[in-house]
């Protein structure tokens, strides 16, 4: 499934944002800001970039998307449902008893979820393992690992980057959601990251930087990344809460769901924008 029309992709991203608001409101808890902020990137990945087939979720040749910062799973679930992995109606069950849509992703019961994630820093190592397996099997699929800037506090992440460089994993593309917030505040206050570009470069990565809401630029950046012969980090500058004015750039929305009134306002804004 490759949608080339930017207008069409924009519409999908908007629907995903509406899904996120509805899911989180119904669940009564969850992570709004990061999920909304990554809607454009997930749209571009699932509807243009990834080589995947929802009807064959275990096809060994598929590209892998590993969500390392598992807490933004509402955007993953919505993208998977809209891509055809499971019926949209299932989205309503987010965080409910007996639902395959767990509060943080679980790979066993939900097609399209490559692994379980939640504790930060773990997805990146698994993505590196998958990239190594692809090399061993001489397969050409690519591994896209989504991480957040706050996640870069975790030492494990840097351990994984060192290994990716050591084994020259040019099939690994790390996407950094640079939204400048984490649960307790702004990243500059909680743990200053200084230059992520310099850090990644010194770890042997080729670094690309992109506006995480410009769909055309995202498509071009991902396509460029695929052709680079080193591990790649795409630093995606995003606005947390993007699309819902009262949430944008406010760290207090990192780990919070809108109530019904706020959801109404958010959905109106999104519908007007579509």
């Amino acid at each position, binding site marked *: 499934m490759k949608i080339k029309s930017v207008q069409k992709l924009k519409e999908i991203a908007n629907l995903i944002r509406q899904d996120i608001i509805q899911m989180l409101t119904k669940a009564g808890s969850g992570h709004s800001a990061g999920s909304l902020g990554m809607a454009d990137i997930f749209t571009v990945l699932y509807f243009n970039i990834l080589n995947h087939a929802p009807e064959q979720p275990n096809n060994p040749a598929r590209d892998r998307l590993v969500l390392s910062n598992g807490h933004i799973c509402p955007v993953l679930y919505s993208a998977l449902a809209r891509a055809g992995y499971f019926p949209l109606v299932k989205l309503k069950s987010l965080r409910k008893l007996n639902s395959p849509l767990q509060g943080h992703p679980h790979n066993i019961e939900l097609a399209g979820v490559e692994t379980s994630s939640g504790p930060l820093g773990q*997805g990146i190592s698994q993505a590196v393992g998958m990239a190594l*397996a692809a090399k061993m099997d001489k397969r050409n699929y690519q591994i896209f690992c989504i991480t957040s800037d706050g996640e870069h506090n975790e030492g*494990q992440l840097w351990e994984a980057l060192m290994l990716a460089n050591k084994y020259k994993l040019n099939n690994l593309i790390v996407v950094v959601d640079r939204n400048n917030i984490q649960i307790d505040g702004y990243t500059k206050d909680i743990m200053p990251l200084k230059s992520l570009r310099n850090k990644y470069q010194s770890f042997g990565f080729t670094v690309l930087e992109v506006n995480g809401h410009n769909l055309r630029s995202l498509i071009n950046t991902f396509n460029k990344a695929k052709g680079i012969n080193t591990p790649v980090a795409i630093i995606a500058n995003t606005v947390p809460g993007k699309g819902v004015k009262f949430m944008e750039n406010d760290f207090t929305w990192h780990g919070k769901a809108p109530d019904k009134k706020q959801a109404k306002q958010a959905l109106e804004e999104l519908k007007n924008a579509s």
Partner: protein
Amino acid sequence: MLVKNWDKLSELEKKSTRQGFGDAILSLGKNKNVVVVSADLAESLKIDKFAKKYPTRFIECGVAEQNAMGVAAGLALSGKIPFLASFAAFSPGRNWDQLRVSVCYSEANVKIASSHAGLAVGADGATHQALEDIAIVRCLPNITVLAPADYISMQQAVKAAVKIKGPVYLRFARQDGPVIYTANTRFMVGKANVLLKGTDVTIVACGPIIYEALLAAKQLARKKIKAEIIDCHTIKPLDNKTILSSIRKTKHLVTLEDHQVHGGLGSAIVEMLSQRYPVKTKIMGVEDKFGESGKAEELYNKYKLSHSHIVQSVLKLLK
């Protein structure tokens, strides 16, 4: 099963369980899905030969056990059968969260091969003597826990682990110890081995320390006490049947492990028996203390885990 001359220590071949791991993994190398993930302890884990023979299936992660566990999970989720080789103090000691989520929760087919378990590590001291690993691993869902007693059973455990689809923890040790099993012994995961039959007391142990239990049985026999010695190499799933049938006969239980008394083999057995068939029990292990530097036999003496201490425990229990 048990070698005939088991009680003649000087006649027995001495080999370590870690050598058993290294030799088994080398022979498993012909399985193209088997991968070894190392954290800078290849020589200690005896996997250097595998590394030389199968360089493309040997991933050296450096001293980074958390990442190594995740990498192993990623390999497993891509169809490989990775063995993560390190010391038990670091793996699962340092990467338990990764074991819990990346491996057990995701049902990733990772084999966690951890050497240098127990006081018997010796001179390196407390930091490197993993005494809590059984406790922190067996509480996790979806994982099989194995702690073989000697070189032969270790090799067989490694081969059995490959056939299990899912996480397996293999606990083994640094020190050379007597080879007590005959080469043709059949090792079955989940099936404890009755090494000596007895009627008065059941002694269940795991790992190389079981040789102390065998020596104790020999001493007890002189006092007309017949001890049944069970090698409980599989701590999870526990072989309830073999343990219960022995306990119903002897009514007395001593458990022995080179591990804390909290949460290990003894705890696992007592959790089961307390609900099925409670009996008088002594759990022998390290009594809520850290270890220290010393020779293995010195440490077993100081921490009251040698055969003479087992004899004393049995006599006290039977009083």
